Structure formats: structure tokens, C-alpha cells
């Protein structure tokens, strides 16, 4: 479990059952130094609590204090891993890696060592698209991550700036898999955060864990989640339902159409304790209704857990799942046309990515 300060008060998190926390870790969420969204400012290490209007130059004098407060808080919660935070930039400055080492990696590692803390250390890394597509940038970030001798692994976040709900970019997905593979080849633990259903695809690179977020903003990383944007207009997403058989979220409008046009339409969707309620005529579909998210959480968890342990078997199963999903989509599309956020347009790309990755791992 990954704990998110923006969503839970620091004292409430401290009071949570230790059993819930001892297998998880904290995402410190120091992405923006000056934004105190949600309950972030209840955390002792939040920069605004160290100094009002905290800015980058303040890190020169406060890096040790910040490291101490952040690590002490993580220790008090008895999380499994100690997390080194990262900052977010729209465009990374040329000194980003140097600064990250000086402001975070070195003081955090030194404090952990000084306190004799016997827990694994994960480094948070936000991977921007350019770090996957540009070889020089990719080399730079990989050399930086793997260059820290005392780090055991990474809390890896692929930034998602795609306008479509599913990622359909062949190069992006293949490079993401290769990125994970390189880190695994370096004997590092890899924990993936903020993934949507492409988590299934990433699983073939054998990361150590993949987070399952229920809400849309937990299934892809966007910095807006950490910015106070009260005055900006909010766009409510359409209610959607996940199907593990289709490997896709289907817009409620299409489910209504399927109901009218496909007699056994319910069979395209998984069974869960939430399903009967959602398929009752009086159920009012709305993005804020909890049932579709609970349903997803339950179904996707089951789907992830059903993945074979062996990489070869996992790859074969996923390919077979994709082929089956394509067959099911064909049946749907005979009667109901779908837009490209509810259809199967991501699946051929996924299939091709898997094939390309298979070649990569046999090299």
C-alpha cells in the first residue's frame, strides 16, 4: 500500500493500524515545495512548516532538517521502505540530478545510516516521456538512479501526458518496459506508482509491485493533483466501468447502448458484489458513485494476482487475454460502436509491444 499525504492527515496516518503500514510505504509528495494541497501541510517535513514561502534556495540550508523530519515520520509509522522524495518540474533544469543528489539523496541516505535504520531505501523518480524517448536523457536518468550505491530500489512514476484514456504509443510503452528491465537487471527493486490498466503490460518486465489506484487521478500521474486549482474549471469525467475481459474501461453511455442491443451484455463485465447494484435499472451512473471504483479495485486486484509468476507464462497469458478481448470487442462492435476511449484501439499496440519486448529479453 502506498500512503498519500495529500489525502490523509499526518496524525490520522500515524494512528492507522501498523499492520496496514508494515508492508507499504509513504509517497512523501514533495513534488512542489510551495503547494499545500489537501492535508500536505499537516506533515512535519512539509517545507512550508520549516519556513513560510519556502523556495529552492532554502533547500541549501534546510536539506538536513527536511531529511530528518521526513525520515523520522516514516520511521514513526514503521513503513516497510524508507522513501527519498523527488521534486517535479515541467522542464527539468540541467542541474536537476545534481540538485536531487545534494538536496535529497545524500542527506536522506546519510541520516538513515547515522540512525542505523535497517530498512530498504527507495528513490522516488518521475520519468518524463522525454526520458524514455531520448537516448541521451534516458542514459542520464538511468546512470543517475543506478549510481547511488546505498539505494535498494525505486518508486517509479511514469508521467502520463497522453490525451487518451489508454496509452497507445508503441515506443513509449516498449521503452517503459525496457526502462524497468534495466533497473531489474541492476538488481534494484522496482515499485510502480500511478498506473492504469497498462500495469498489466508493465508486469511483464517483472517489477516488484504495481500500485492500483481507483480514481482516475490515481491511475496516471499529473502534477495538477498537487496544485491548488480552486479557481480553475473542473471537468467531471463520465462514469465508466472496468472489464477485465475487455482490458478496458467502458463509458456508461455505451453500457446503456449494450443493454439495449446485446442480450447477454452483462457477461462482458466481471462479477463482484457491486455488480448487481450497478446493473439495476434505477442505478444512477455518476463519476462520484463509489461502486464502479470499488468494483475496479476488486476486479483489477484479482486480475493482477492471477498473473503467473514466471515471466514467460505471464507474457503468454497476457497475449492470450488480449486476443480474447479483441474477439469480445468484435462482438460488441457488431452492434455498438465505441469511441476510442472505450474501444479496443489500445490492444493491438499492447500486443505488438509484448512481441517486441519478447525479442528484447531474448537478446
Amino acid at each position: 500500500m502506498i500512503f498519500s499525504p495529500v489525502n490523509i492527515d499526518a496524525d490520522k496516518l500515524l494512528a492507522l493500524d501498523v499492520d496496514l503500514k508494515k508492508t507499504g510505504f509513504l509517497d512523501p509528495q514533495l513534488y512542489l515545495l510551495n503547494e499545500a494541497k489537501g492535508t500536505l501541510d499537516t506533515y512535519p517535513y512539509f517545507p512550508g512548516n520549516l519556513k513560510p514561502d519556502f523556495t529552492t534556495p532554502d533547500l541549501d540550508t534546510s536539506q538536513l532538517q527536511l531529511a530528518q523530519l521526513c525520515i523520522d515520520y516514516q520511521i514513526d509509522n514503521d513503513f516497510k521502505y524508507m522513501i527519498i522524495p523527488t521534486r517535479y518540474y515541467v522542464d527539468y533544469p540541467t542541474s536537476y540530478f545534481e540538485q536531487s543528489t545534494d538536496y535529497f539523496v545524500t542527506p536522506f541516505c546519510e541520516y538513515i545510516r547515522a540512525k542505523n535504520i535497517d530498512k530498504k531505501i527507495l528513490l522516488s523518480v518521475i520519468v518524463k516521456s522525454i526520458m524514455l524517448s531520448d537516448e541521451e536523457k534516458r542514459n542520464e536518468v538511468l546512470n543517475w538512479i543506478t549510481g547511488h550505491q546505498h539505494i535498494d530500489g525505486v518508486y517509479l512514476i511514469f508521467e502520463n501526458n497522453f490525451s487518451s484514456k489508454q496509452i497507445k504509443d508503441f515506443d513509449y510503452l516498449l521503452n517503459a518496459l525496457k526502462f524497468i528491465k534495466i533497473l531489474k537487471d541492476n538488481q534494484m527493486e522496482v515499485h510502480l506508482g500511478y498506473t492504469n490498466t497498462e500495469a498489466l503490460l508493465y508486469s511483464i518486465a517483472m517489477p516488484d509491485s504495481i500500485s492500483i489506484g481507483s480514481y482516475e487521478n490515481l491511475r496516471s500521474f499529473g502534477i495538477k493533483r498537487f496544485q491548488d486549482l480552486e479557481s480553475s474549471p473542473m471537468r467531471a469525467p463520465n462514469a465508466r466501468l472496468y472489464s477485465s475481459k475487455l482490458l478496458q474501461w467502458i463509458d456508461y453511455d455505451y453500457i446503456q447502448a449494450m443493454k439495449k442491443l446485446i442480450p447477454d451484455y452483462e457477461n462482458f463485465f466481471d462479477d463482484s458484489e457491486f455488480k448487481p447494484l450497478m446493473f439495476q435499472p434505477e442505478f444512477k451512473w455518476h463519476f462520484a458513485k463509489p461502486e464502479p471504483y470499488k468494483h475496479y479495485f476488486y476486479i483489477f486486484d484479482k486480475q493482477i494476482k492471477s498473473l503467473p509468476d514466471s515471466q514467460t507464462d505471464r507474457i503468454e497469458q497476457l497475449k492470450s487475454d488480449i486476443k480474447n478481448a479483441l474477439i469480445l470487442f468484435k462482438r460488441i462492435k457488431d452492434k455498438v460502436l465505441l469511441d476510442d476511449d472505450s474501444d479496443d484501439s489500445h490492444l493491438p499496440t499492447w500486443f505488438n509491444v509484448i512481441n517486441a519486448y519478447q525479442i528484447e529479453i531474448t537478446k
Partner: protein
Amino acid sequence: MIRDCTIIKELPLGGQKKVHLAEHPVAGKVVIKRGAIKSFTSLERIKREVELLSELDSIYYPKQYHFNIDIKTKEFEIVEDFIEGKVLRDALAQFRTPDEIFKLLNSLIDGLSIIWDKNIVHRDLKPENIIIRPNGMPCIIDLGIARFLDLESLTKTISPMGPCTPIYATPEQLTNNKNIIDPRTDFFNLGIIALELYLGVHPFDPTYVGNHYSIVENILQNKYTLVTPSVTYDDKIAQFSYQTLQTQPYNRFRNYTILKSFVSKQY
């Protein structure tokens, strides 16, 4: 201290320095090094090396007894332990089989891990900078261009090449990509040394690689040989070479624990 020493003879090695073998009544045989301080950078490098060696108390490094700078003459003098033995260049025949090579590597990793733990990269590992003691144990010398990762870099960013011995250097040294210098730089150097010991020739030597580039160009293009007309392929040596002689550090062994774990399983 130097006044108490009796000079025995001048030693041939030393580059820009004058090096004498001498006898000290308490320390025994010592080496006296004298040389000119050519710049602030060279003074800072000498100081860093001396300070490091003074705090190291290990069989893998020569002991440092004395250091002095003469401001008037702009000269330095250093007195350090004389290491009995031969430089690895003259002891290549002692390490020809994979077992012998991996045993030596294991000892070298033990020695180097002492400085790696201090965030220091040797940056100039080569057969001339390793002395093999009579008991077969290596002693690592010449930390003159070592990179102290916690201290300010002394290498000019605009220099086309970083400090190194080019034919034993890594791609990142040859291109002065100083931001990615770390212990994996030394791993690459160890890869060259190991393969040279096994083959009896420099692995990037164009004569054996079969091209017309120089050794340095072959290092930059990652073209090396695992065999010669008289030496056959060895899987363990090949695997070690593969995991050390990579252009990108992230493709090499990640840290010395992983490196040592691999090496210690090979013999």
C-alpha cells in the same frame, strides 16, 4: 623526517616526480617523492591524495609518513611506505588462468571498496598502479587523479578529456562526462585489466580486435576481443568483461557488493 632518511637509490618510476628509495631508522624502507606544484589544481590533488592515504591504514595502500610543501620553491615532498614486490605489469605471468585472475580481482575489490565506501573513485587503475607483494597480495598506488565525489570536482568542464590514462580509461573519462564518474568507472578499468591478464594483450588493441582504430577509439566504440590466436574463449572471463566493459555505467555491475558477489563465485 626526510633528514633522518638515508637515500639508497633513485627509482625510475614517478612521471613528473623525482622518486628515491631511502631507509628510515624507524619506518624502514621508504619512498621519497619530490616534485613541482604546477597549479592550484595539482596542489589540491596532491593534498587530497596525501590526506586520504594518511587516514587509510590498510595493506592495500602504501602508508603515508610525511608531507610538506615548500612555498618558496613551489615544491612538495612526500614520504611513504616502500612496497616490496613487482608492479602488475611485470607480474602478468602470475595471473593467467581465470582462477588466478578472479582471486586477484577479489583482493583488488576488497582494497578498492575501502575508498569506494568513502565516495572516492581511483580513476587510474592499470597494471602500473598495482604492486603485487611477494605474498601475492595487491597494493594499490597512485591516487593522484582520484575523484572525491563529495568534494568539488577539479576537472575543467570544458576539457575534452577527463584526467586518466587513455588506454585504460572508460568512455565517460575519455569524453569528460564527469557527472557519471562513480565506482563503476573503476569497474570498467578492472574489466580491462582482467581481460588483459587473461589474453596477455590489451583487449582493445586493434591488432587483435581486427580493425584500424586506436585503442582509445575502440574503447569509445566498445570494440574489444575475448580471444587471441593463442588464447581461447572463457565463459567466466567473457561474462565478467560483458558486465564491466559497457559504455553506459548502468549496464555495468551496479555496486561493489554485486561485483564482489559475482567475482567470488568464479573460482
